């Protein structure tokens, strides 16, 4: 395993994502600080794990990175271009490159759409039509369904006809459809039965390797992050508590909090 372990300022080339002083507050007079001065670099091909407990700001961070929300202060640049102040019509380069997989496929798949229209929906976006040229939606649909090990006839059925693990595959197929370079996965297996988690994780790992994807993997499950990611950021109350190569963060955590997190991982005790 070659782990491109990049301390933030040692990256020679421009990182894919460059996050500086990112702060997002909610509520009146900004009383709730969801994110508080986060600095973060993600380079192409990196597999970054973001761990933290509920309320640590994980979801806020990835929403900002996907330009689904605007920060209160701070900046995010993607491929050297500042995205936090761009209007939606000019975010095409980001929309074409960054896709998300959410926690619960029951909520992330529209129950009233067929699998085929769900998976090809990203191709309808004006940005992607522009970026990809006339896309053969049908061809692409078969390709991505095949990539996630779903039969081609799945396209005509509805999400509720599938099991939880299969539904998450559909969500992954949708994320792959526009041919992204960055995959942001927000707790993609925590809503699934234990018995199918490993399958979905193997699938994700395989797709990331096969397509040279940059992976940003959000999870509260440290064992999974350790397995899948080469670098880790530990978030606590909106701030980065510790970051570094996965082996180091989990093997020899420097901060008190990370140590507590690591030791709290439930282990089989016999």
């Amino acid at each position, binding site marked *: 395993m070659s782990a491109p372990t990049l301390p933030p300022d040692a990256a020679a080339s421009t990182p894919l994502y460059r996050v500086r002083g990112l702060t997002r507050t909610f509520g009146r007079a900004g009383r709730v600080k969801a994110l508080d001065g986060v600095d973060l670099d993600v380079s192409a091909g990196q597999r970054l794990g973001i761990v933290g407990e509920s309320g640590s700001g994980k979801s806020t961070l990835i929403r900002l990175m996907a330009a689904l929300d605007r920060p209160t202060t701070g900046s995010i640049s993607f491929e050297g271009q500042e995205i936090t102040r761009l209007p939606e019509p000019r975010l095409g380069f980001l929309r074409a490159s960054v896709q998300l997989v959410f926690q619960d496929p029951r909520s992330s798949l529209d129950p009233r759409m067929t699998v085929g229209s769900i998976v090809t929906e990203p191709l309808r976006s004006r940005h992607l039509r522009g970026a990809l040229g006339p896309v053969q939606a049908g061809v692409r649909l078969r390709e991505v369904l095949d990539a996630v090990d779903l039969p081609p006839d799945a396209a005509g059925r509805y999400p509720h006809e599938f*099991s939880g693990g299969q539904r998450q595959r559909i969500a992954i197929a949708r994320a792959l459809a526009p041919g992204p370079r960055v995959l942001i996965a927000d707790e993609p297996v925590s809503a699934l039965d*234990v*018995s*199918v988690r*490993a399958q979905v994780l*193997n699938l994700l790992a395989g797709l990331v390797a096969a397509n040279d994807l940059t992976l940003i993997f959000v999870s509260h499950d*440290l064992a999974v992050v350790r397995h899948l990611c080469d670098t880790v950021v530990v978030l606590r109350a909106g701030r980065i508590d510790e970051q570094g190569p996965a082996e180091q963060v989990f093997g020899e955590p420097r901060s008190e909090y990370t140590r507590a997190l690591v030791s709290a991982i*439930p282990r*089989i*005790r016999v």
Partner: protein
Amino acid sequence: MSLLEVSDLTVSFGRRRRVAVDHASFSLEAGQRLGIIGESGSGKTVTALSVMGLLPETAQVAGSVRLAGRELVGLPESQHARLRGDLVSMVFQEPMTALDPTMQVGRQVAEVLRLHAPERSGRARQHVLEMLGRVGLTDAERVADSFPHQLSGGQRQRCLLAMALINSPDLVICDEPTTALDVTVQARVLALLDEVLSAEGAACLFISHDLAVVSQVCSDVLVMLDGDIVEAGPVAKLFTAPEHPYTRGLVATARIDQVRPGERLPTVEDFYPRAEAR
């Protein structure tokens, strides 16, 4: 005589009689802690609810569930209700929805006490505060006067635990009690559960999909799959030398820390192939 004896329990639902639990038999001794492991739809929660008598009306129950010698299948609701919270109690997964949002938690705990032990209700508040202290809530006074939304997830789960234990039940059923909690809070709640169950000498039926969590609380385990108990035995034996292929798969997937990073994870399918479409 065992504390809980379940024999040939069969539960089916609806007009089509979809079978959720299929001829399940097991027993639980006083003070024993038994884990039930299974995925969603395996029948583990339905089994627990039939002991609690909390199955929906559409459920048809056959077989026998004996708690402290008393048959629970077919027991009228009014009599079953008297046992709940007294002889047997339950801790639910989601502490936010299991607590009444409009009532201070202290009063909610006291209500359980008054219902079943009226003779102790004169000093109810004192009992409640003592119980909240025993479940590790240091500022019991403040917690008792708080509404659920003013407490953290861990505090709420401790309050539920206090409610479940205040009448010193013989059996506590925990349905995924830590699934909704953060890992550090989960670790603390599990340690606490272990401690108070020992102190109270209560038996426990612990339902979870997480083998590691079960192994920290229970001495024995049942593995359920599609309504059947496919394997049962002591934790040590089941986790080190599982017999049923499905159990072998579960144990293998739970040992994610033993797989080198980047390598393919073992899946249940590797051991127990079956059609995924359900």
